[in-house]
């Protein structure tokens, strides 16, 4: 046998690592570095601009939107997941709801905005129906195209996402635990408040955080729905990218994107910690 120089097997990972460095890590580093620069030099001006009144108001709107849709999605999503989990795992009902939920959770963007414009817009189907039948003007002054509209529209993908994320935890609640509790004399109420809810709480909170991050970073739906003003952070980033100079800062887009990384990273880390806690009993 001839001896030949053998390359270490890890060398074969280079194309993958190189690709991700160029198209994921460098853009991320660019954002972080750019946030602390202005005109090619170190500056905290852009970070300070994040604390201006206009930027803070936008951040507050984004938090309000993400938190409210996360809570609404978590409550109604877990309720639907509970209804689903009561049905037999092989039933058509359960299979179709879980399939539908996995589709609708991915269903966002421009399509979703148009779906609601076709429903509740000025000449939307429901708007015209209510106008013709009970003479009610549900369109009003165009609330659909502002923050209240965004809350309604985001709920449409948040509820199905909650169903998908929370269903495994509900499925993991073993009937034996309920039987054990009942055998020890617990009422249904006691079982829920002292066994099931404490067990499910980390999973529920974790899923809510995931929903929050999901809404906070969503862009397409809002961009298609809201064409006037920049009520939330993703739209402020759009304005900063397209108009180059906003609030008098060139690198504001970097600072806003940096802010988004921080918020999402903090929320997702908390999510990962809560998931780890659930996985202790979930198999």
């Amino acid at each position: 046998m001839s001896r030949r120089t053998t390359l270490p097997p890890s060398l074969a990972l280079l194309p993958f690592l190189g690709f991700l460095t160029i198209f994921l890590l460098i853009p991320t580093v660019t954002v972080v570095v750019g946030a602390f620069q202005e005109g090619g030099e170190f500056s905290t001006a852009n970070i300070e601009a994040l604390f201006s009144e206009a930027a803070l108001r936008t951040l507050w709107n984004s938090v309000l939107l993400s938190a409210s849709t996360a809570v609404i999605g978590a409550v109604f999503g877990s309720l639907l997941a509970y209804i689903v989990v009561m049905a037999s795992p092989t039933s058509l009902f359960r299979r179709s709801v879980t399939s539908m939920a996995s589709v609708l959770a991915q269903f966002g963007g421009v399509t979703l905005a148009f779906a609601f414009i076709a429903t509740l817009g000025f000449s939307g189907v429901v708007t015209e129906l209510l106008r013709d039948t009970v003479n009610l003007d549900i369109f009003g002054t165009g609330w659909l195209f502002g923050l209240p509209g965004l809350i309604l529209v985001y709920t449409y993908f948040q509820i199905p996402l909650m169903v998908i994320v929370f269903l495994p935890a509900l499925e993991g609640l073993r009937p034996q635990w309920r039987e054990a509790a009942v055998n020890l004399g617990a009422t249904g109420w006691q079982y829920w408040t002292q066994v099931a809810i404490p067990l499910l709480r980390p999973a529920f909170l974790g899923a809510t955080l995931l929903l929050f991050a999901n809404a906070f970073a969503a862009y397409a739906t809002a961009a298609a729905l809201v064409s006037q003003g920049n009520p939330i952070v993703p739209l402020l980033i759009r304005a900063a990218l397209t108009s180059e100079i906003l609030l008098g800062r060139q690198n504001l887009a970097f600072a806003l994107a940096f802010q988004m990384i921080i918020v999402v990273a903090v929320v997702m880390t908390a999510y990962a910690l809560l998931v780890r806690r659930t996985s202790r009993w979930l198999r």
Partner: protein
Amino acid sequence: MTSTPTWRVTRALLLVLYGLFFIVPLYAMLDFSTRSTQGGRTGEAWADLVRDPTLSSAIITSLLLALFTVLGMLLLLLPTMIWVRMRVPGATRLIEFLCLLPLTIPALVIVVGMRNVYTWVNYLVSDSVYTLTFVYVVLVLPYAYRAIDAALGSLDVVTLAEAARSLGAGWLTVIARIIVPNVWSGVLAAAFISIALVMGEFTIASLTNYENLQVVINFLGKSAARTSVAASLAVLVFVFVLLMALSYVGRGRRGAERS
């Protein structure tokens, strides 16, 4: 579990409310896109999908982008993941972390930071819309990774590889003819979810001024609302069918695993 009459009524009522909330917007799209300005029904907006040159070319652009993304993703990810399982198990954590990273770094952040990289891409490769493939591969990575990882997990890659090697197969043969045919369901699932994501992608294309399907649909929304709603619904149905098929592919595999 308890199934009192009150609970059954409540459940039925809740399901009707959920059903209304999720089905009415979809029905509204169909109704809105087939309405005629003179009253009555018309298929004009739907005919525009093939008649309108901007729209039909955007459909082709997005389909091609989806195809290139799937090819790029498979070329980059599949050999790497198999190789890690076979030869460098120590890198499993690193690869997983990198693949799931795009979940924490939103597309919006990537688009803000990628201007430098794309200046070079446009200079060295081309400035066509299809260069979006590169960043789309990153975008679909977490979902594709999970699909392929689940399929690989149900397989004893190391033993299979050793068996094939001892019979004289080279590494390429092992990957292409032994491992890949065994993880076909995972590959299919990864491809489906990638197509679905690319067909719906708007954020990156619109902020880099490229015209993919969603950008054109959004643009048409201002001039030809009915056409854009028809196109939205068409894409939705397409993606719906893909993801439904995906949920059956996944189920078939899991079922086989259990038996």
